[in-house]
C-alpha cells in the first residue's frame, strides 16, 4: 500500500517509537515569536541549554504596536522585546528584530525567508503554524511547555494524527480566492471536522493556487479543528523558494528538490477520511457569527436558528446572532460596518495587498469607517511601497501601518471597540477576539476593502 505525503514526512522524523501511536519526533525548524519570551526564561530558570540554536528562528509580532513609526510601543512590549533580544543573543538564536528588514508575523517570515521548506517538520508556539503547510511542510502549533521541550531537546512527543484528504473540485469563478475556498469548507464540515486529522488539500483548484494562496488555505486548518494542513510541493513551490535567504543553494538545492519530488502522496495511498468539495459555483464568503463555521456567501441571508435541528445548536446560533447584533433572515449584504482590518498571517502578503488595493483604487473609505492595512512583514511592506500600494491605500483613506499581528488578536492595545463591527481578513471571529464585545466578520482582502469603501458588507465584484 502506498504512503500519503504525511506518512512519508512523519516516518522520516521518528527518533523513537513510544508505542500507542506516539513518537518522539525530530523538529527541523522551530519558530518563535514574542509570546515565546517566557519559554526562553524557563530554559534559563530550569538550567537547561538550547540543544540546536541554529534550528530556532525568532521574531516579534504579537505584542508590538503597528502604529506608523512604532511610536506608541507599550512599556510591556518594550520590556518583552528587550528580553527577547537579549535571550536570543545569549543562546545563539537568529532573531529578526524590528527595523532589521526581516521582522514580521512569524508565519509570513518563515516562507519569505526560505525557512519553511517542503518535507520539513516545523513547530511554533502558535496555533497558526499550520500556515507553513502551504510550503509542503508538516507544521503545527504547540503549547509553551512544548516550546521548552523543543528548545531543550530539538524533539517533541506527539501522537500520530490520521491522514485526511480534502479534494477541491471544479473551477472557481473569477474573483474567488483561497480564503473563500477554506471558509466554504469550514462552513460545510464544521470547526470540528478535522479534529484528530492531518489534512492534505488536493485537487485542481489547489494546484491552481499560487503559494501565497496555499498559505492562506492552510492557515485556517486549525479553524477546521486540524492541527496541521498542507499542500504537497510542486514546481510552484520550488520556484517560490529558490534563492530565498535560507533556502538551500547550489548542489544542495538540487539534492533537496530531488528529495521533495518524492514527497507527494502515492497514487494508492489510503486516507482515513476523504472529503470532496465542489467550488465551481461558490460566491465570496463572509462569516456572520462567532465561529468560522458560521459562514455564508455574500448573496445569502443570515441563517435562522429556528431551522437548526437540535436545541443546543439552536441556542448556540441564537447566542451568536445576539452577540453579533444581527437579525436572522436578513441579507448579510448591506450590514453597516465600523472597522476594517486587512492583515494577519492569513491575508497580509503582497498578493493580498494587491487584491485589496485593486478594489480600493479610486474609492474613498466611508466616513464612518476606520480601515487599517497592516502588512505581514517588513519585506511585504517594502515591496508594497515599491509598487505604490501604500499610496493607493492612503489616498483612499486607509491607514498604512507597521508589520505585526495587530488587531487580529488585540494583545497589543489595538482593539475594535465594544459593540462595533469589523470586517477582518484574519482567521478568528471568536467572541472578544478583536477586543471585548467586538463583532468580527471574516472575509478575503478584496471583500474587506469593499466593506471599507462602501461602509457596509458588500460584494466586491459589483463595485
Amino acid at each position, binding site marked *: 500500500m502506498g504512503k500519503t505525503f504525511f506518512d512519508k514526512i512523519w516516518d*522520516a522524523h521518528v*527518533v*523513537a517509537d*513510544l*508505542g*500507542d501511536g*506516539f513518537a*518522539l519526533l*525530530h523538529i527541523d*525548524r522551530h519558530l518563535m515569536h514574542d*509570546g515565546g519570551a517566557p519559554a526562553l526564561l524557563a530554559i534559563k530558570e530550569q538550567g537547561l541549554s538550547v*540543544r540546536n540554536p541554529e*534550528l530556532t528562528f525568532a521574531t516579534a509580532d504579537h*505584542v508590538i504596536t503597528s502604529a506608523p513609526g512604532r511610536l506608541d510601543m507599550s*512599556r*510591556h512590549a518594550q520590556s*518583552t522585546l528587550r528580553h527577547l533580544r537579549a535571550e536570543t543573543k545569549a543562546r545563539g538564536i537568529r532573531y529578526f528584530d524590528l527595523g532589521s528588514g526581516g521582522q514580521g508575523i512569524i508565519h509570513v517570515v518563515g516562507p519569505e525567508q526560505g*525557512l519553511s521548506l517542503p*518535507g520539513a517538520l516545523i513547530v511554533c508556539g*502558535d*496555533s497558526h503554524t499550520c500556515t507553513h503547510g502551504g510550503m509542503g511542510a508538516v507544521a*503545527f*502549533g*504547540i*503549547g*509553551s*511547555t*512544548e516550546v521548552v*521541550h523543543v528548545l*531543550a*531537546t*530539538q*524533539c517533541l*512527543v*506527539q501522537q500520530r*494524527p490520521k491522514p485526511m484528504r480534502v479534494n477541491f473540485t471544479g473551477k472557481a469563478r473569477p474573483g474567488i480566492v483561497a480564503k473563500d475556498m477554506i471558509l466554504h469548507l469550514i462552513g460545510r464540515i464544521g*470547526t*470540528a471536522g478535522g*479534529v*484528530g486529522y492531518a489534512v492534505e488539500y488536493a485537487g485542481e483548484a489547489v494546484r491552481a493556487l499560487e503559494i501565497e494562496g496555499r498559505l492562506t488555505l492552510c492557515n485556517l486548518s*486549525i479553524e477546521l*479543528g*486540524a*492541527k496541521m494542513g498542507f499542500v504537497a510541493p510542486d514546481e510552484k513551490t520550488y520556484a517560490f523558494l529558490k534563492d530565498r535567504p535560507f533556502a538551500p543553494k547550489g548542489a*544542495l*538545492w538540487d*539534492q*533537496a528538490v530531488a*528529495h521533495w519530488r518524492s514527497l507527494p502522496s502515492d497514487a494508492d495511498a489510503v486516507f482515513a477520511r476523504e472529503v470532496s468539495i465542489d467550488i465551481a459555483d461558490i460566491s465570496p464568503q463572509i462569516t456572520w457569527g462567532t*465561529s468560522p*463555521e458560521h459562514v455564508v456567501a455574500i448573496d445569502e441571508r443570515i441563517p435562522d436558528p429556528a431551522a437548526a435541528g437540535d436545541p*443546543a445548536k439552536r*441556542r*448556540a446560533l441564537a447566542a451568536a446572532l445576539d452577540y453579533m447584533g444581527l437579525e436572522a433572515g436578513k441579507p448579510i449584504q448591506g450590514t453597516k460596518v465600523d472597522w476594517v482590518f486587512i492583515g494577519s498571517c492569513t491575508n497580509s502578503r503582497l498578493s493580498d495587498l494587491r487584491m485589496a488595493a485593486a478594489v480600493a483604487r479610486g474609492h474613498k473609505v466611508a466616513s464612518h469607517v476606520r480601515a487599517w492595512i497592516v502588512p505581514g512583514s517588513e519585506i511585504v511592506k517594502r515591496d508594497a511601497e515599491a509598487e505604490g500600494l501604500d499610496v493607493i491605500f492612503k489616498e483612499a483613506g486607509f491607514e498604512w501601518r507597521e508589520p505585526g499581528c495587530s488587531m487580529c488578536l*488585540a*494583545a497589543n492595545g489595538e482593539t475594535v471597540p465594544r459593540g462595533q463591527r469589523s470586517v477582518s481578513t484574519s482567521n*478568528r471571529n*471568536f467572541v*472578544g477576539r478583536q477586543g*471585548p464585545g467586538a463583532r468580527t466578520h471574516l472575509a478575503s482582502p478584496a471583500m474587506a476593502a469593499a466593506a471599507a469603501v462602501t461602509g457596509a458588507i458588500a460584494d466586491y465584484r459589483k463595485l
Partner: protein
Amino acid sequence: MDKFTTLRAIAAPLMRDNVDTDIVIRIERLMGGDTRREELGRYCFESLRYLPDGAENPDFVLNQGPYRRAQILLAGDNFGCGSSREGAVWALMLMGIRCVIAPSFGDIFRNNCYQNGLLPVVMDRAEIEAIAADVGNSPEQNQVSIDLQAQEVVAPDGKRVPFRLPAMRREAMLAGLDEIGSTLGREAEIAAFQARDRKARPWIHQA
C-alpha cells in the same frame, strides 16, 4: 507537573460545543503585562463569568451555588479549540478544575493538559449529558468520581463509564512525570538520528 490519581468532586455542566481558548482566557490576560500567572483563575471564562460592568453574571453556571467549587467540567465537542495558549490550561486549573470531560478536544489544548496534569477525558456525548442531568438535580450530593488507574468515571447514579488514555499519557499523569526530563534521557537516540539525517537531508541542518 501535578499528579492525577483519583478525584471525587462537583461537576459543572458547560455543554456548549467549540469552547475556544480565547473564551477560556483572553490573550490580554496572558500577554498584556498586567496580570500575574497566579491571578489567571479569576479571569477564566471572563466574558461569560462577568458582565460588561465587571459584576458577576448570575446566569453563568460557574457563578451558581455549589458549581463555584466544581473541579470537573462537563463540556461539549471540540473543547479548547483555537489558539495554542497554554494559559487556558493554567486558568482552568487555577480556578480549581482538575478534569474536563468532553466528546472531543482541540488537539493543542489536549497536549497542554497533559503537560500540566489537567485530565482530559473523552466520552460519548450521551453519557456526558446523562451525567450532567443527574448532577443538575443536586450538584452537591451527585458528585462525580474519576479513577485514572482504572480509567473509569463513576456517574452519580453509580454507573461506571470507562475511558481510555494512551498508556504513556496515563503513566505520566499518574506519576506526575515531566516529559522534558524523559526526552533528555534519550540524548543518544537524538544524536544518532541527527547524524543519520545530516547525510540524508543535509539542507535541513545547515540553515
